[in-house]
């Protein structure tokens, strides 16, 4: 059964470190070209269709700013 996921990034708390992007197995994430209030290029779902909700990004995020949702499809 396939899984479909989505993440929510707390944009103002993201530090744009890119660790989530490097650890996303489905290449869903990227750093946005816009910056947040602190000047960081925050993480976002550049390819939302590929997210499986595996939670890998959230587990490695040093600032714990990612929330993950998942459904069976």
């Amino acid at each position, binding site marked *: 059964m396939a899984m479909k996921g989505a993440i*929510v990034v707390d944009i103002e708390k993201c530090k744009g470190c890119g660790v989530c992007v490097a650890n996303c197995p489905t290449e869903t994430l990227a750093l946005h070209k816009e910056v947040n209030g602190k000047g960081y290029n925050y993480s976002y779902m550049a390819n939302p269709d590929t997210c499986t909700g595996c*939670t890998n990004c959230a*587990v490695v*995020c040093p600032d714990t700013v990612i929330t*993950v*949702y998942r459904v069976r499809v």
Partner: protein
Amino acid sequence: MIMDIKDIIKPENLVYQKTSVLTDNAMHYCPGCSHGTVHKLIAEIIDEMGIQDKVIGVSPVGCAVLAYNYLEIDWQQAAHGRAPALATATKRLYPNKYVFTYQGDGDLASIGTAEIIHACSRGENITVIFINNGIYGMTGGQMAPTTLPGMKTSTSPYGRDTSTMGFPLKIADMIAMLPGVCYVTRQSVQTPVAARKAKRAIAKAFRGQEQCKGLSFIEIVSTCNSGWKMTPVDANKWMEEHMFPEYPLGDIKDYLQ
């Protein structure tokens, strides 16, 4: 069929969120620093074990000095390197609490060498979480006893020359030989697999305090990307290529059930 994101982001589909043991304070750590990831793992274990009111942490001097701002538990803050001494007193006064220190390599392997060795020698029933990023992060990336041979730091700008600056001090291997120590493991947190393994190790050490078998020691091979002058992602790769051969991951000693 491609689902609308709005139909996925609903409370009933939640699979990961920040534990409430972590406060809402924004961490002061540099982007990508291992400290934040390790804080999160400790907070999740405390949450899952239901011991938020039974755990006492001792924060170090170093970047993690302010750890008490990030985990909603009881804390003390020790003088540089003295966390194991403070944890000793705390655990002896409160034997039913889970007591841990959280220390960097400048704190634990340099100024605090005596305290950690003797806490291990006495077999204190505490957990030590040792963040080894190979340098003094907070003060500007100076060489630490743990710095790799040839590694450039602000005080070894041409690289650590072992003929005059000595060799990396492998505290985990040293203390594993002491009978007062029941569990020694070396972990890392740069990937989801590594972080989940490190979390299991920390949980095992906390639970191990119930067995009263002595000191449990978890080294986390870490990065200080600012001090190393790399991006966070490059620092994680550099750690895998250069730190892991010198500090191999895995259990060194395990007397826990």
